[in-house]
């Protein structure tokens, strides 16, 4: 590591914890350049002053009481939601749930394999996006939840199988005034689209199952629902190409 790159590294990595190997290495490299080292020491002194100002800040007791009570209420609500198999009530709910699943499966059997028309509209709009309409984002598809939260899209979710694809661009566009998150993935020239299916009247049962369709003679789209959100893959190719992609282990 050169002193210059060490300086850049230390601009965003605090010296704590002291056992951080990367920080120790960077400090060692920085020691070779006295001017950069002096500049870094000024930074550390200033960072410590800001840290002390924040650390010395006491929360008013009423704030602690108010926020603490709200946090405990959330924790209590979450633990009530947790499944306890020894609880007879939960067992009854589980049996009821299985029956419900059976009924729903029977009900929707006739609709299996149908690609929702509304989703096809979204796929068509998504496939028309040009590279310059995306914001440059270089990360894994599964690591963009924070990015989308910052943009106002709260429930971004990518199935685990697609989380490790490299993304080169991202954006949000609107269909019927509803936000749709889009990722540009260079591999196979794909787009990933994520959106809330409920306001658009899209239902895909059972959850996790795929629907595949071809459109505009040269594109194929596959859609599934997971955790209440729809995830759609669009590629330039055929249904067969896409089926191979989603079935690949």
């Amino acid at each position, binding site marked *: 590591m050169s002193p210059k790159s060490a300086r850049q590294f230390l*601009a965003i990595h605090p010296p704590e914890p002291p056992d951080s190997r990367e920080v120790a290495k960077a400090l060692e490299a920085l020691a070779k350049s006295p001017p950069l080292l002096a500049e870094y020491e000024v930074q550390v002194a200033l960072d410590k002053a800001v840290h002390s100002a924040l650390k010395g800040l006491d929360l008013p007791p009423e704030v602690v009481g108010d*926020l603490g009570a709200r946090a405990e209420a959330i924790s209590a609500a979450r633990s009530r939601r947790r499944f306890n198999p020894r609880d007879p009530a939960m067992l009854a709910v589980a049996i009821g749930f299985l029956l419900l699943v059976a009924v729903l499966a029977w009900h929707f059997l006739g609709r299996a394999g149908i690609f929702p028309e509304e989703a096809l509209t979204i796929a068509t709009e998504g496939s028309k996006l040009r590279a310059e309409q995306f914001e440059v984002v270089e990360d894994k598809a599964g*690591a963009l939840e924070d990015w989308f939260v910052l943009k106002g899209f709260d429930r971004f979710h990518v199935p685990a199988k697609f989380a490790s694809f490299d993304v080169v661009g991202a954006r949000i566009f609107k269909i019927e005034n509803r936000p749709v998150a889009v990722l540009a993935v260079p591999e196979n020239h794909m787009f990933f689209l994520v959106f809330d299916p409920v306001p658009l009247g899209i239902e895909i049962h059972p959850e996790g199952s795929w629907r595949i369709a071809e459109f505009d003679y040269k594109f194929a789209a596959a859609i599934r629902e997971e955790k209440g959100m729809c995830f759609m893959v669009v590629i330039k190719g055929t249904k067969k190409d896409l089926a191979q992609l989603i079935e690949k282990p």
Partner: protein
Amino acid sequence: MSLFPKEWSFLAEAWKFALVLTGREAAATALVSGALTAVSKRADLHEAERTRRVLFSILCREGAKAAAVAVPETPSERSVFFLHQLPEPSRQAITLFSLGAFSGERLASLLGKSEPELARCLDDARSRLRAHHAPLS
């Protein structure tokens, strides 16, 4: 020792961060409270770490909309006023960095910046603090 239950120990940092963004104690409490409401509606947040990340993301997004305060009123507001006066995104970057709430990589990701961009934000904040607040330098 944290004043909050263990899995919510980050709320102290969240409130301090909100105080820097809003400049007012009451507005900071309302901001964190609103973020907690948003988090409570998310059925997919089971891990404390993920809850923390999402809560801070919401604070970043909503806190940036807060109007600037001209005159601090309470001792707490006065003690962070020098940070409140910084422009965004330098203000969020230096505050979260100084709170030690996230690693450099995670902080860059949280603010939607690359690591070099984050370094520039932090350098900008440090320069402004040195220029306007001599006792800090």
